[in-house]
C-alpha cells in the first residue's frame, strides 16, 4: 500500500513538472508571438504614415498637372488633327518632323473642316 502511494505521488510530481514546463512554454511562445506581431504592426504603422505624407504632398501637384492637361486637351487635340492633315499634304514635313514621333501617313486620316 505504501509502495502504491509513493509511486502515485512520484507520478503526480512528474505530471506537475510537465504541466509547469508546458505552461512556461506556452507563455514564452505567446510572448514571442506578441513581440513579432508588435514589430509587424509598428512597421505597417510607419509605412502608412510615410506613404500618407507622400500622398498628401504629391496630390495637389498631380491634380494641378492633370487640370492643366484637361484644360489644354481640346487645343492639343485640334493641333494634332491640323498638323496631321498638314503632314499628309506636305510629305517632307511629315517625314522630317512628325516621323521622329512615330507618325506615318497610313495612320492618320484627313479631317474635313
Amino acid at each position: 500500500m505504501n509502495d502504491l502511494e509513493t509511486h502515485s505521488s512520484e507520478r503526480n510530481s512528474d505530471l506537475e513538472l510537465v504541466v509547469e514546463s508546458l505552461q512556461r512554454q506556452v507563455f514564452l511562445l505567446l510572448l514571442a508571438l506578441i513581440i513579432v506581431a508588435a514589430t509587424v504592426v509598428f512597421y505597417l504603422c510607419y509605412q502608412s504614415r510615410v506613404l500618407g505624407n507622400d500622398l498628401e504632398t504629391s496630390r495637389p501637384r498631380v491634380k494641378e498637372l492633370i487640370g492643366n492637361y484637361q484644360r489644354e486637351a481640346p487645343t492639343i487635340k485640334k493641333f494634332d488633327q491640323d498638323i496631321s492633315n498638314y503632314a499628309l499634304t506636305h510629305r517632307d514635313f511629315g517625314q522630317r518632323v512628325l516621323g521622329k514621333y512615330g507618325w506615318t501617313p497610313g495612320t492618320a486620316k484627313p479631317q474635313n473642316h
Partner: protein
Amino acid sequence: MLLCAGLPSPEDPKKRVDNRRQSAKFTPTMKSEALNGILTVVLGALLVLGVFFALKVVFITHELRTLQSQANFANTALLQTQAVINDSRAYYNAHPDADLGRILQPFQPKPATR
C-alpha cells in the same frame, strides 16, 4: 470490514477516482490562465491593428500609383506636344508656309509685357 473502516473500496465508482489523500500540488493555474488570457487578448488586438494598417497601406499605395500613372500620362502628352510644336516652329522658320503658320499661331510665344 474495510467499508466499515471508511476506507475507499475499489468497487465503489465514487471512490475510485477520488484521491483526496493523494492530491498533487500544481502551480496556481488560475493565475497562469489569466496571464495567458491577457496575452491572448493583446495578441488579438495586435492582429486587428495589423490587418487595419496593412489595408491602409494597400489603399494608399493604390492611390499613389493611380495618381502617378495619371501624372505620367498628362506630363508625357504635354511634353510630346510641346516638342512637336518646337520642331514644327523650327521647320516653319526654315520653310515658311502660310498653312503651317496658321496652325502654329495659337502657340506663338507671347511677348513679355513691361
